[in-house]
């Protein structure tokens, strides 16, 4: 039933801005988790440096894109604040990972 309902929603119209905001937050947190795993992998010499660097760059790009997109969405102020806070938290942890990586390389 839920699936049918979802299909109907998809057929009738696009995703609501609220659900787009939630998707953006999920995607950003997925990238933040990826960055964490990749940094650990690099530290343990399981992953090559170029791959790690590219992944961290991709994660940064995704976070920046999410921040830009969230501004254009028609969502309540409280939702916007929540998502922006989450994105800032992830950006901070990504910056920490980059610094840590740079320190290890030295």
């Amino acid at each position: 039933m839920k699936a049918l309902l979802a299909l109907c929603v998809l057929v009738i119209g696009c995703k609501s801005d609220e659900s787009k905001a939630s998707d953006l937050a999920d995607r950003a947190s997925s990238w933040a988790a990826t960055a964490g795993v990749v940094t650990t992998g690099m530290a343990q010499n399981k992953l090559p440096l170029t791959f790690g660097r590219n992944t961290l760059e991709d994660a940064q790009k995704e976070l920046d894109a999410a921040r830009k997109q969230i501004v254009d969405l028609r969502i309540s102020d409280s939702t916007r604040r929540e998502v922006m806070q989450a994105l800032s938290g992830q950006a901070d942890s990504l910056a920490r990972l980059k610094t840590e990586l740079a320190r290890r390389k030295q």
Partner: protein
Amino acid sequence: MKKALQLALGILTAIGGFFDIGNLVTCSQAGASFRFQLLWALGLGTVIVILLVEMSGRFAAVAGKTLPEAIRDHFGARMAIGPFVVLAVLHVMILASEIGGVALAMQLLTGISFKVWAIPVGILIWLFLWRATFDAVEYSTSTLGMVTLCFVVAAVLYHPSNEEILKSLLPSLPKSDPAKYWLYAVSIMGALISPFLFYFYSSGAVEDKWDKSYVWINRIVSVMGMTFGAVISGALLIIAGMVLYPRGISADNINQVAFVLTEKFPFWGFALFAASMGVACLGAALEVALSLAYATAQLFGWEWGMDCTPGKHARFSLTYTVAILIGTMTIAVGVQPVKLTMLTMALNAMALPIVSIPFLLLMNDRRVLGDKANGPLMNTATLLIVATSVVLFVVSLPLVVMGS
């Protein structure tokens, strides 16, 4: 002895040729988002693909004709042209995805963008087809494709719960995000039931000069080859479910999947993943390009075959050359291979009625197949496949338009 060797090689080819960018993307995304819950889609798709591959091989062995030839003879060239155009476009999209898969594997290994790798990869594929014989293409890529067994080894080393796996083989409703769940279910089936598989398989049977005595070999190859191939895809889904799902990583980009083997193979895991992806996509790209050339030549009645010089079969060779060129340029201009794959796999599922309906009619032609025509059991199975394919078409239409 010769047949036993052919049986072994056939199974090897089926396993090696089964796994490609479609399975890699759809299974890792499904595992990352829904853990093992979508294993049922893999199971259902595998049963369907076994039956369709068995029928296409049986038809080729008994009638000495490939599927496109039989469709043209049975329905007439005019009726066959419409579905052919749809399948040709799909072939080119799959080929572009596979070229993108090899280029992405090179990006993982070198750090240089997949866009840069697209052209060298396209040239490599074209050169291989231009110079090699059918057997060389078939057996070299499938033997190298055995590297993908590393996914099975890793999945076993993760010790997943057997109970959870068995439960997941039965369809269930998603706990969250139903649209994504059904899109992934449809895409998994689209990745498994690719039209190129049947065209390539039946053309291969004719190239290898199969006759009625090969019917039992065909049966074993289709059942064992497809089952083992599905086990590799299932293993990747399980690994993604155990590595990515608990961390909330959604596998939208290949960099989010490439490290899944490193926990169990710390030193080789990353290279193994990239090699598996590169080899599997290279093998599939060769097969898709050939399959399109076979289908085009067979529909228009041109000379075809891999064992003659390109000069002798100019139009056949030109077809795969143009297809490789389009696929290569698509990736070189920057189309994202993972996104292209998801769209293509959903479209594949939509096109399934075009592939499955002719089987129902062709496999009942007793003038051609004699006692090897479908019996009541196989006809019931084929009817169920046709019904499933129509349902998939209806379900994937809104999902493709809005979801992907």
